């Protein structure tokens, strides 16, 4: 019963959804953080609120993504969940027989292995962001094309070029070289898609059993060039959910719904009208030298985190 809000704050974008009575998506927003996650969360709330006509009662809030803790403190979340579990939950309800999830986001790429609707294994990219959306983004900018046009351009290639895929720095050097030889933009873009896919399969997917049905989601799932390249490599067609770009947020909302809350901690949509900021300091009380962060709302400290010993976060409750 009731409506639930899910927020997924990743490294590049912030996703917000409102799920209704029957888990249908009433509103969704997908915006770039541009390095300002707090503003992005506020803007996301504004957008979903506008989509439901400016007023709605929310019965619970779940946050996920790499900035899930920040988002939780800001909006007053009832549940904070890692993005692996959040993505898996959203997929299991959408396609119960799914066996593999490929999720490629801005800086993270993941593989989640499901069996009988349960996560049995997962993997994430390790020390570098090769094979993720932000790499495509940079190269699109370099080529002077929009990221939205990127995928369709790749589909028009006649002879995709081969581009070194091990490392984005190598790939970039290689790509510049291909441009200078005189290959068409379409062929280069298609080559980039191939190299990103090979990188993903060799790093994130290595050693994982990728059984069909395979669900492909995350911001990069919008890119048809990548989709086709993945399908070619895996020799199977991929399932792309309708709300592929906000699946993490949907998962967070579903999880909070399952928690059967008595009362939500949500601070309310008027949060978007408040001035919110954070400030950090280094604690010198012990050898941990924690970087402590305080969240200010209309110039009052409303939350505090980062302290391993929790001395500051308990201070505010006292």
């Amino acid at each position: 019963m009731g409506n639930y809000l899910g927020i997924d704050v990743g490294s590049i974008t912030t996703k917000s959804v409102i799920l209704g009575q029957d888990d249908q998506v009433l509103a969704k927003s997908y915006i770039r953080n541009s390095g300002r996650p707090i503003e992005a969360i506020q803007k996301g709330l504004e957008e979903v609120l506008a989509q439901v006509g400016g007023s709605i009662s929310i019965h619970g809030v779940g946050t996920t993504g790499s900035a899930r803790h920040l988002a939780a403190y800001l909006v007053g979340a009832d549940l904070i969940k890692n993005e692996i579990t959040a993505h898996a939950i959203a997929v299991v309800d959408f396609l119960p027989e799914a066996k593999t999830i490929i999720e490629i986001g801005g800086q993270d790429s993941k593989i989640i292995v499901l069996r009988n609707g349960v996560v049995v294994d997962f993997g994430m990219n390790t020390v570098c962001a090769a094979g993720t959306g932000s790499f495509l983004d940079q190269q699109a900018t370099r080529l002077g094309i929009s990221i939205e046009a990127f995928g369709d351009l790749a589909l028009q290639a006649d002879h995709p070029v081969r581009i070194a895929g091990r490392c984005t720095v190598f790939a970039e050097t290689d790509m510049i070289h291909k441009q200078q030889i005189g290959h068409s933009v379409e062929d280069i873009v298609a080559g980039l898609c191939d190299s990103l896919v090979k990188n993903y399969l060799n790093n994130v997917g290595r050693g994982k059993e990728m059984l069909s049905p395979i669900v492909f989601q995350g911001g990069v799932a919008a890119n048809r060039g990548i989709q086709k390249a993945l399908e070619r490599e895996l020799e199977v067609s991929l399932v792309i959910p309708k709300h592929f770009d906000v699946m993490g947020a949907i998962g967070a909302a579903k999880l909070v719904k399952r928690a059967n809350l008595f009362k939500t901690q949500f601070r309310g949509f008027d949060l978007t009208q408040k001035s919110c900021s954070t400030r950090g300091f280094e604690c010198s009380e012990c050898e941990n030298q924690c970087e402590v962060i305080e969240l200010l709302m209309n110039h009052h400290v409303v939350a505090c985190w980062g302290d391993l010993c929790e001395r500051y976060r308990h201070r505010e409750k006292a």
Partner: protein
Amino acid sequence: MEKRGRIGIPRALMFYRYFPFWQSFFETLGWKVVVSNGVRQKGKIVYFEDSCLPMKLLVTHAIQLKEKVDHLFIPRLVSLHRNYIMCPKFRGAPDIVRLATEGHVPILNETIDLREGEGALLQSYLKTGKRLGATKKETKRAYLEAKKTFNQFQKEWKDRINRLPTGRLFEMDIPTPSEGSKASWRVALIGHPYNLYDADINKDLLTLIKSLGMEIITSDSLSEEEIERGVRDLSKEIYWSSGREIVGSLFNFLSEGVDGVIFPTSFKCGIDALLQEFIKRRLKIEGGPSIPLLILSFDEHTGREGLVTRLEAFRDVMEQRRSDGQIAVS
């Protein structure tokens, strides 16, 4: 007793296994043992070449100590187990440190090579004792005392790792707490000891694991036979002693009694790279891991968020296995 002088031991590499032995040995001989502090959050890591992070940390720690001690103790570890050998960087460690400290301080660097038999260990320490001016009898007594201390320490290890803060694990004057809260999960931690216990390398993985309700067990709690059983059927002997221990304990843990296995690795480590690949292939042949396995790769990142995400997801996987698909939402 009047102290004879100060022996510096860098808090790096095999410190994270043998420190109790080393400390007891030198103290029994009448020397004061000084340990480096580490880099913590803001300290600088010294670069001397494109090495693995643990080796960079050895140099960083040694430089920290060079003005404060009369000798640095960096044994040349060649082999710690029959025909298995250590990574060549351990063999070169005293030389690397000598270059980095520019000859500021003498280095006690006697070779330890147990391919010649267990007796080689005492022989190595006898040489160290001799360099410090101790008689054979005094050194032998210190060696036996050190062995006793080390055995006792290993017995208490399981309680120490689960109940003491990471920075205190190897502080021998801190007694082992006997009681603690009950954990929901039993998780095995495998890998090179410094990757497991050095918070500068793994962003204090231990505290994080414990805060998620997991009890830690390590290969220290396995017998020699149990580790041997894990590697006995391999078509080819593993060359490295750490590799033998990691693979041997992994297959033991996978076959019984734990809810999950975590394997922290060093990004630049050749042995870890081979082992990961080997483990994945071996598990694939056997139809996948019977319990959740999480491999973590560490380098010089300072952020902890990626680590938290992986561990929380790992906990969720264990949870779903136990409760038939349900995920805790509280």
